[in-house]
């Protein structure tokens, strides 16, 4: 059995990120279209309302882009970056998984203690697709101490 932090093949994962990027561009394009509409609808009576709507739509579009990028695009991109990094191998049994979260290379991780040739600490990205349980034995693929792939 094999698990990767991507949870799918690399191409599908890249496509998923690209789709999310396209979603942001579409949202911003929608905001621009609304801006054009509100600007055309503007007259002396509704001047204040249309001004507010344009500001509101732009602020909302901008806020959506920032938050969506921060929570839905940036984390998978980081996972992809470490997935593509140079790896080392480690074989061992999981003896402890921390409840606490550690930030390694801007990625929130769980601290995992592995018993192999002596005890070793590795970090499991929290938002990755790998599930580990205490007592299981795995062959770990590591990139800078972060678990990228596990295989029985």
């Amino acid at each position, binding site marked *: 059995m094999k698990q990767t932090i991507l949870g799918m093949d690399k191409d599908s994962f890249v496509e998923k990120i690209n789709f999310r990027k396209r979603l942001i561009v579409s949202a911003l394009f929608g905001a621009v279209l609304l801006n054009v509409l509100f*600007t055309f609808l*503007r007259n*002396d009576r509704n*001047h204040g309302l*249309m*001004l507010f709507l*344009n*500001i509101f739509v*732009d*602020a909302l579009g*901008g*806020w959506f882009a*920032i*938050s969506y990028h*921060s*929570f839905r695009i940036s984390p998978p991109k980081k996972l992809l970056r470490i997935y593509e990094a140079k790896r080392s191998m480690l074989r061992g049994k999981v003896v402890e998984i921390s409840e606490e*979260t550690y930030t390694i290379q801007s990625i*929130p991780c769980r601290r995992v203690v592995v018993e192999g040739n002596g005890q070793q600490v590795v970090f499991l990205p929290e938002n990755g697709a790998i599930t580990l349980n205490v007592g299981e034995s795995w062959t770990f693929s590591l990139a800078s101490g972060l678990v990228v792939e596990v295989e029985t």
Partner: protein
Amino acid sequence: MRKEVLSHIQYSGWKYFVVLLASILFWTTVFSALAHPKAHEKVSISCFVDELEIGLINERLNAEKESITAQKLKVISVENFPSGDPMLGVLLATRKITSDILIVSENVLALNPSGSAQVDPKTFIPFSREKLEELLEGKVENLDFYYVEGYAVGIYLNKEDGTSGRFGDFYKGNERCVAFLSNESVNLGSLYDIGDPSNRAALDVLVYLLTK
């Protein structure tokens, strides 16, 4: 998740603030430009006259603009500058004064001791007396034209004996004042063959000032 959100706000909060601020600044600027009245929605008058009650004339013209003219106006704007302002000549020469009507007291047009007039009356473009009288439809009797080399270039707003129309309500001096019409104005009923002939708000304002 809550921890992630808090951390995100802590590190990226400024981005949300910048987006909001940029949006406000951008749209306020754009909408201010859009709200700016177009040439046919505004009659502007520049005055180089001392002792003119500028606040009163502005207030009265804007309060009565619907009865003064049938043309749909957003505003009638009257600005006053000191008659001795040496910039007037420069402004006229560089065509920086783009108002529909320019009101100047006669001393500005007269020669000063150095032998040169502050404003050369030849700066002003002559108009057809007959066409103006036709456009005014007899609403003003005994129009007193200001001539330069035999051509009518302006209209006196008050008479030599000190009497005048409504202009006298706002002007407390004893100089004679001349109204010059801009050959670029679109609110003069095509007096200078420019603009829509039905847009004649500047002429209506002139009538208002010349009559009681």
